[in-house]
């Protein structure tokens, strides 16, 4: 199952498969997730949502709702201050404050079905639901547009009268749905095409998909009369929640204390705020705690899915497989407000390859859909779907093995990317080789099955983290950080702390603190926690070790420089220091009161040097020609993770990401009807993979350490969703001899394609 290549062998704790610290809590039902918090006297909040895809709000009458017994507060957009047109970072995405306040409660217009319009707080859920029904809204329904290509047309209904395309010179004079144009290039693309002996060009589409976390958004807000606000929220970044609530409601940051619950999945979708400002405002207005939980339907209609889009890719290569020119044009759905992950989609498109001449153009397009949010490697799976599919066509055209073609063009240390940076030590070649040498790749597919491969890239990020380490009087250690544990990060933080300190893993207790109990931490996202917060934890432990050495020096009456820290003990640095018995952490802790008081360490940093990650996936599958149903027989995913701190959770991230990508490739999509309403806002009709759809997912863990982290960590979570779309598509193409260019490859689409091709094939 694991093929860790042994970097981890040099460590005592790192690379071991220890039980996670919160394991027992989570298997017994004790762990408290978003909807599990309650407060005495709490009210339940509910939201009124738009039934229309696009409409002017003529008037809102809340009087009947206010009169209903049990209703304690009703709010509309008037209860949120207007915000400036300013862009602020939110997770891996950017948000505009003017837009986000309108996304939380609609102002002039509703821009998608499910757009919140008003909210109520009542003594029970039943009353709150009844009150929502009593709010009367007068609309003037406007023509809507759902599709990206349609939204880009000059005569499309325009969502925002003030939206002038950015990045075009001279700037257009008329508003449109194209929020932004983005360009990046390298070399001389025209010269590149002249060198090409083979050119392939294709256009692809993907549909919007949802992160599909099993836990719906939830929060509980309690605003006190003196202005202090307590908030419990299921989020990937409680500091972000604090920042947004403070900004959007005009409350001083220090007056808001956000405690993160356990989080039931997020994948980027819980880096934005939907309910929190509403709950806080309702609590302020009613003087009572207010709890809000979305239904699954609300999650689908009104949280942020990943965009769908259109990708056109053109590749030029020599006969020997050397790619000399590459072009990519991407148009992404932003949803109702600008801000799709267009940058990452563009920048990652050719990042796997060392190509001299590249041209990439991207468009960010608004339409009457919910505002998109981050979803695992935001943007990258979409451009990779286009690029990796086209590479497969090229491999077939040249009669080359698809792994060999990728090896021939693989990015390495020193490769300059089209978007600027030059790669330091990266492990793409090693990852390709891991697949090439795998049992899977060396065994031909079973009769009737076809094979597809594809690669993927993600930057991984660093950013702000704080951590603290405390030693207790018995010598056990608490490590405090501020990133919600979404997939087992407590274990990796504790492993690094134990390794650095030289104590047993069981002696380290990792704690995730609320916003008032630890310094700022950026969101749990971007595959940054083990890397950046891990670094903060390691540094906080180092700070504590510095203090431990001071205490040992005091005990021995020597200079602190004469003390070293080894295997969890203070030892004299050499024989000239004097003869002293080593002092253990427990001994130093027990005498702390006599040597200067508590022993703690702190660290804060803005982590630079995140190590990019690469993945290569291979899949064997069969298409049932009658039903169009795809059966996956075997799946292997290799990825360079730098160092696998906890190999089981590293494999788990790879397996989980791969399966989300398989779902994206095969079945998942937002389906809209002619009225612009979402037709499949539930798990029955939005079909995510279940256990019986899948084989085991073999995870090959490749370890090429990141030189910018003391333990070589790169980050793991995002890369694995990038390759599956094209890997599955390539296998389907080889299986049925039809190149599908529109996702998902769902049974109706595949059987239609097969039917359409069959008479032709019979005639040939």
């Amino acid at each position, binding site marked *: 199952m694991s093929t860790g290549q042994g970097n981890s062998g040099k460590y005592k704790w790192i690379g071991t498969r220890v*039980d996670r610290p919160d394991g027992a809590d989570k*298997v017994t039902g004790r762990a408290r997730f978003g909807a599990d918090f309650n407060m005495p006297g709490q009210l339940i909040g509910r939201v009124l949502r738009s039934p229309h895809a696009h409409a002017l709000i003529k008037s809102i009458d809340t009087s009947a709702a206010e009169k209903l017994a049990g209703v304690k507060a009703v709010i509309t957009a008037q209860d949120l201050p207007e915000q400036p047109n300013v862009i602020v970072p939110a997770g891996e995405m950017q948000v505009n404050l003017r837009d986000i306040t309108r996304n939380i409660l609609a102002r002039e217009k509703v821009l998608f079905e499910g757009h919140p319009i008003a909210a109520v707080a009542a003594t029970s859920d039943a009353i709150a639901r009844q009150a929502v029904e009593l709010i009367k809204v007068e609309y003037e329904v406007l023509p809507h547009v759902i599709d990206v290509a349609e939204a880009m047309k000059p005569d499309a209904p325009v969502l925002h009268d003030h939206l002038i395309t950015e990045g075009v010179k001279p700037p257009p004079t008329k508003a449109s749905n194209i929020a932004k144009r983005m360009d990046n290039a390298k070399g001389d693309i025209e010269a590149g095409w002249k060198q090409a002996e083979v050119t392939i060009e294709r256009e692809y589409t993907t549909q919007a998909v949802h992160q599909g*976390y*099993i836990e719906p958004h939830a929060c509980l807000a309690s605003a006190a009369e003196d202005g202090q606000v307590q908030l419990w929220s299921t989020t990937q970044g409680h500091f972000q929640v604090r920042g947004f609530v403070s900004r959007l409601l005009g409350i001083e940051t220090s007056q808001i204390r956000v405690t993160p619950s356990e989080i039931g*999945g997020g994948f980027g979708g819980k880096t934005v705020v939907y309910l929190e400002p509403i709950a806080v405002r309702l609590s302020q207005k009613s003087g009572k705690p207010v709890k809000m939980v979305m239904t699954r339907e609300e999650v689908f209609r009104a949280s942020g899915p990943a965009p769908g889009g259109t990708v056109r890719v053109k590749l030029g290569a020599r006969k020997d497989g050397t790619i000399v020119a590459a072009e990519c044009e991407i148009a992404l759905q932003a949803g109702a407000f600008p801000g799709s992950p267009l940058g990452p989609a563009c920048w990652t498109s050719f990042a796997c390859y060392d190509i001299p001449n590249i041209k990439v153009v991207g468009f960010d397009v608004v339409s009457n859909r919910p505002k998109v949010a981050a979803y695992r490697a935001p943007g990258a799976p979409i451009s990779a779907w286009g690029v990796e599919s086209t590479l497969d066509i090229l491999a077939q055209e040249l009669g080359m093995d698809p792994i060999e073609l990728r090896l021939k063009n693989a990015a390495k240390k020193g490769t300059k990317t089209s978007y600027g940076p030059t790669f330091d030590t990266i492990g793409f070649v090693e990852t390709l080789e891991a697949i090439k040498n795998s049992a899977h790749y060396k065994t031909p597919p079973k009769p009737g099955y076809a094979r597809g491969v594809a690669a993927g890239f993600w930057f991984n990020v660093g950013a702000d983290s704080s951590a603290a380490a405390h030693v207790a009087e018995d010598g056990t250690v608490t490590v405090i950080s501020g990133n919600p544990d979404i997939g087992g990060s407590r274990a990796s933080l504790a492993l690094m702390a134990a390794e650095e300190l030289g104590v047993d893993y069981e002696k380290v207790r990792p704690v995730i603190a609320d916003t008032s109990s630890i310094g700022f931490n950026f969101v749990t996202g971007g595959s940054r926690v083990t890397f950046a917060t891990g670094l903060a934890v390691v540094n906080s432990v180092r700070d504590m070790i510095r203090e431990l050495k001071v205490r040992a020096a005091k005990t021995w009456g020597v200079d602190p420089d004469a003390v070293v820290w080894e295997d969890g003990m203070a030892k004299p640095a050499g024989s000239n220091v004097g003869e002293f018995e080593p002092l253990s952490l427990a001994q130093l802790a027990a005498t702390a009161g006599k040597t200067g008081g508590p022993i703690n360490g702190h660290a804060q940093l803005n982590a630079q040097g995140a190590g990019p990650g690469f993945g290569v996936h291979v899949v064997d599958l069969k298409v049932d020609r009658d039903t169009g149903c795809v059966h996956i027989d075997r799946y292997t995913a290799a990825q360079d993770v730098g160092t696998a701190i906890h190999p089981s959770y590293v494999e*788990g991230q790879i*397996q989980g990401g791969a399966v989300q990508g398989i779902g994206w490739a095969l079945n998942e999509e937002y389906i809209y009807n002619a009225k612009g309403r979402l037709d499949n806002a539930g798990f029955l009709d939005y079909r995510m993979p279940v256990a*019986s759809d899948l084989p085991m*997912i073999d995870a090959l863990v490749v370890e090429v350490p990141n030189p910018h982290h003391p333990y070589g960590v790169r980050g793991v979570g995002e890369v694995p969703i990038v390759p599956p779309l094209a890997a599955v598509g390539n296998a389907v193409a080889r299986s049925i001899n039809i190149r599908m260019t529109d996702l998902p490859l769902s049974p109706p689409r595949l059987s239609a394609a097969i039917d359409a091709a069959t008479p032709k094939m019979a005639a040939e």
Partner: protein
Amino acid sequence: MAKMHISTTINGEPTEFLCDPSQSLLDVLRDNLGLTGSKEGCGSGDCGACSITLDDRLVCSCLVLAPEAEGKKIETVEGIAQGDQLHPLQKKFVEFAALQCGICTPGFLIASKALLAKNPNPTETEVRFGLAGNLCRCTGYDKIIRAVMEVAAEMRGAAR
């Protein structure tokens, strides 16, 4: 609406509660009884996060009306461990990293326990189909399936 008085046994304890006739059993467990181990992922029977057993039958508690529990025996995730001893499934889930975020875990544990009670010797395919009513978005199912297969093997070994 007048409340109904219901008598049940939950995790071995005789339990009485008052509920609205239209309340789901999941809501009663979570909101009236404070048993928040069972989770609501969909409220429509499609995710399995709310799985419990009712008279030893695996059900989605979001689809059961609370009054239907009258006179019945309920088991939730809170009742799986024995005192301070985790159930073998709980132990193996932790050991095998069969959970990432953990929101689906209570439902998977209940469904796995029900599956092994019916079929102590399942094939991988049988486990996959047995757990197909439970969604997990994090793990890709691999580690969950391995954990359940391993427990089945161990329990067979212990029974021998």
